[in-house]
């Protein structure tokens, strides 16, 4: 459904953020994109809906080459691409309902959006989505009155109200605590399978990615260096992606994989050791990585 061919992005500053990336995401397939800070993960998903203009390469969404679209056709294409952000990116001074409804802006006229007169079917759907993400009582609250986890749920509802075919998710859990992170990741992966949505999820938390996503793509300095299932992500592969480190706490032990997932809510606390030791290392990597 989504096919990226030889995508390259060089920023005006000279940074080569993407260097000939090719990637294919099938309908309903969820991909976790991992890689060190500055690897180009955000750049990759932002070139897909052209928040960042690619330098060269093709991005085919259902056969349509996105980089070649004019502004009107681009807006139409963007409607089918939902985006979820690390810092939630809700419009802080609007209510939860207005934020969710803004997912429909590509479909309604300027006048209707001005007077907030959305079709009743859309409002029904917005309430259904708010209920699905567990925020049905919050519809009239202002977005800046919500906690991080609640904001991200609103962000998810907004993206889904677009009725997208694919979700672009940029570090959905990086601003959340370990438990909320897992709940949000579970919500996103559940919703994608319920609706048969494809998704690309940028994520720093490798154990979390391995827990919820079946296909992992590793990016390093703008090039794909790993593409496979979580079990194949051995110490050597992680070293390829991130560089030399002691990866024993991160690599998945054979046989222990699905249990955690199935036990669900109860042992939401058993992961953090691995997750946190990794994120501490990443924090150090982040500093070292920035030139």
């Amino acid at each position, binding site marked *: 459904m989504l096919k990226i061919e030889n995508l390259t992005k060089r920023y005006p500053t000279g940074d080569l953020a993407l260097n000939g990336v090719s990637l294919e995401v099938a309908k309903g397939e969820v991909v976790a994109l991992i890689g060190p800070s500055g690897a180009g993960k955000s750049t990759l998903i932002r070139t897909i*809906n052209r*928040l960042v203009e690619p330098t060269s390469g093709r991005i085919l969404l259902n056969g349509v080459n996105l980089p070649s679209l004019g502004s009107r056709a681009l*807006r*139409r*294409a*963007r*409607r089918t*691409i*939902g*985006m979820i*952000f690390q*810092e939630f*990116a*809700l*419009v*802080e*001074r*609007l209510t939860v309902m*207005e934020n969710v409804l*803004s*997912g*429909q*802006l*590509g*479909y309604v006229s*300027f006048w209707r*959006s*001005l007077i907030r007169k959305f079709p009743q079917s859309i409002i029904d759907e917005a309430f259904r989505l708010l209920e699905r993400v567990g925020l049905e009582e919050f519809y009239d609250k202002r977005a800046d009155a919500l906690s991080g986890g609640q904001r991200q749920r609103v*962000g998810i509802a*907004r993206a889904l109200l*677009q009725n997208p075919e694919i979700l*672009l998710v940029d570090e959905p859990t990086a601003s959340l605590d370990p438990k909320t992170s897992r709940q949000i990741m579970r919500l996103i992966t559940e919703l994608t399978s319920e609706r048969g949505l494809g998704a690309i999820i940028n994520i720093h938390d490798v154990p979390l990615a391995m827990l919820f996503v079946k296909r992992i793509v590793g990016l390093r300095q703008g090039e794909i260096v790993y593409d496979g299932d979580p079990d194949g992500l051995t110490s050597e592969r992680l070293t390829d992606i991130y560089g030399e480190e002691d990866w024993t706490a991160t690599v998945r032990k054979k046989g222990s994989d699905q249990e955690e997932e199935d036990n669900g809510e109860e042992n939401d606390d058993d992961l953090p050791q691995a997750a946190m030791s990794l994120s501490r290392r990443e924090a150090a990597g982040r500093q070292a990585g920035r030139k």
Partner: protein
Amino acid sequence: MPTRTLNGTKVWQRRDRATQFRIWLGWLIGTAVFLYCWRIISENTEWEFVQDAHIQALDMASRMVPPRWSYTPTILRPLWDTINIATLGTVCAVAIATPVAFLAARNTTPSLLVARPLALMIVVSSRSINSLIWALMLVLIMGPGVVAGIVAITLRSIGFVGKLLYEAIEEIDERQVEAIIATGASRPQVLLYGIVPQILPAFAGISVYRWDINIRESTVLGLVGAGGIGLELQASVNILAWNQVTLIFIAILGSVVLSEWVSAKIRHAII
């Protein structure tokens, strides 16, 4: 550099020697210039006049009290005019300054090479001329009266409101805007959902603040014939009716206090 090695230990200072010296030199030159200017001012002042200033002031004060209360009905109408000049002037200025601000802000301007410099020109030229001078010119062009005052206040306020507003627009959180763009919204919709909610508090605050300033500025516009209470002020000064001047001062004080109170209330309600 602020650290240097002295007998094997690292000594840290706030500034190195050269910087310290330059700062010291700056102060020396500043003081010298100040003293020189003081001398020029002093040479051009008739000190005999200054010396008995306190006597003159006391004399004037004694003629200013008590205020001539019976004059009140005469100034009510001009006072009302003054408030109207300020309010209408502010409304017109905000209406014009808002599009100008969107043209001037780096992140919303349709063209960096044409629209933005043009909008900045409007802002700068409006800001560089005092409303009293605008009024002076407008009275010559349009004749004396309230309309000249309104236009003067408008012209002066466009720059003020435009500048503060375009700075507010440039400071918005771009991520919220990107999120709206990513939904496939059109440009006007992005403006409506991504930008307007973010600048609304600034917009209200700036408008009310300018209205508050305009109440004060419009009180003097009458001095050059542009209507309002300034006309009465000038008339009273001309006939040396100092007890009427006092009453006008009290009226101005009252309206300024009132406008402070109203604007504080409005700002509080919106933000």
